[in-house]
């Protein structure tokens, strides 16, 4: 059984239909990526799964239980975390306080343990733990946003454009951390405009276009697919 199963999902903002009947699945242990142009509906999909938006129709099942329309603060308790587009760290709080917020649903004892692991993945966060998050660089803020999402101990981590606005060397670093996280047991749903990088680490991928899924396959297949190359990989 799939860990996350989304079937015929529709989501609208008033009259604007942003997601029009998409279906996809993620199995335990996979890295799955959703790629697509700006405005395709990627963030809308993730935000709906996370409970920030309500679906118009369709089903969302996590571990076999429906989470469609469940409020965001309850979704995270089930082991599903979203690291949102644009990072959205709490800029006026310290790095340590941001991480503490990430572990809001967990006990202090659990948080102490998770914090060690997060600092292992992101040593720079440990160095800067007392610093106000708004003064971090873009790359550091992305690491903080990821670390914060990890504090809830998710079994499925959803990442919305983690490489956005980062220098190539940092993009490499972020992607290698995503791989590490996956190898240590976290299932990953990755949304990216940087299709090249995303496809090269993904087990499977879905191509999203104006709210519908246009293509699906393994990362390796789509990397060499002509249509995908033309549309998303610059030829």
């Amino acid at each position, binding site marked *: 059984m799939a860990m996350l199963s989304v079937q015929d999902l529709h989501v609208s903002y008033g009259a604007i239909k942003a997601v029009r009947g998409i279906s996809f699945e993620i199995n335990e242990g996979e890295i799955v990526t959703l790629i697509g142009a700006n405005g395709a509906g990627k963030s809308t999909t993730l935000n709906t799964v*996370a*409970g*920030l938006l309500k679906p118009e129709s369709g089903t969302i099942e996590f571990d076999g239980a429906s989470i469609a329309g469940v*409020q*965001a*603060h*309850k979704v*995270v*308790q089930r082991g599903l*975390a*979203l690291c*949102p587009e644009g990072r*959205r*760290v*709490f*800029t*006026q*709080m310290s790095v340590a*306080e941001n991480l*503490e*917020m*990430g572990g*809001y*649903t967990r006990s202090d004892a659990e948080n102490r343990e998770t914090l060690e692991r997060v600092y292992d993945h992101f040593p720079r966060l440990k160095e800067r733990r007392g610093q106000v998050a*708004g003064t971090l660089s873009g790359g550091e803020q992305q690491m903080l946003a990821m670390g*914060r*999402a990890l504090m*809830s101990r998710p079994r499925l981590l959803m990442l919305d454009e983690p490489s956005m606005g980062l220098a190539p060397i940092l993009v490499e670093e972020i992607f290698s951390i995503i791989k590490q996280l996956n190898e240590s047991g976290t299932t990953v749903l990755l949304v990216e405009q940087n299709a090249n990088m995303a496809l090269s680490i993904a087990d499977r991928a879905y191509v999203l276009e104006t709210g519908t899924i246009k293509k699906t396959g393994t990362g390796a297949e789509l990397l060499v697919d002509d249509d995908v190359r033309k549309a998303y990989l610059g030829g």
Partner: protein
Amino acid sequence: MQVLMQVLNGLQLGSIYALVALGYTMVYGIILLLNFAHGDIIMVGAYISWLVMAQLGMPPVVAMILSVLGCTLLGVLIDKVAYAPLRNAPRLSILITAIGVSYFLENGAQLVFGADAKVVPAFTDVSTIQLGGASLSFAAVATVVVTAVATVVLTLLVQKTKLGKAMRAVSEDMGAARLMGINVNNTISFTFAVGSALAGIGAILYTMAYTQATPTMGMMLGTKAFVAAVLGGIGSIPGAVVGGLLVGFAEVIVTALGLSVWKDAVVFLLLIIVLIVRPTGIFGRTMSEKV
């Protein structure tokens, strides 16, 4: 001696404004709402004290507890009934609702209690305390001490506790806070509860000094405290305290100079000057940081 008395008067009045301003600032900080009904909550607190002591003949300590409790519940109820359904509505709708709630409370009180002032009995027989040869008003000293303690407790709550941090997280980014597992509605209710409890304490301290409850007493008090919050930088806890003290001292100084008819005007003049020199208030952050 005369000067010391005036300083104490300024501190006393300023402390009351500060307590009320803290409530404004906390609610504004979390949902960007100018809760115009906040001053009227104090009025309700004053009537509760009057009811409990003058009508039911119960001891002052009961009146104090019920006033604070009543204000706390009222604040939470107002949020749940009037503001929560509008959480995603344009800010103007919520602002107008707040003005509506304020009128509702004022007119409701007038309907129930009548327009004439009710005399709130004294909370204590002690009227002065001796300090190094000087005899100081008990109400004034109690007001200053209570406000100082409340400010420290509030600061610790917001800075150090899990709930306080959740409040700051919600205030900065509601969506991100929800993703952390924070129940945003409960956090907002808690903020209203704390702000309104402070209003309840303010009601007791105010009636200690002025011994009256009237349906419209919350209006001027609320407006002055609002000015204090804006002066200090709305959303800022130290700002509310400094703003409250500034407004209190301005009034006392103007009155001491024999110009008491000008005291309200001076408060608003102060507001205009500060907003020209520093639009975000004394401790205010620039708005761009808040996005």
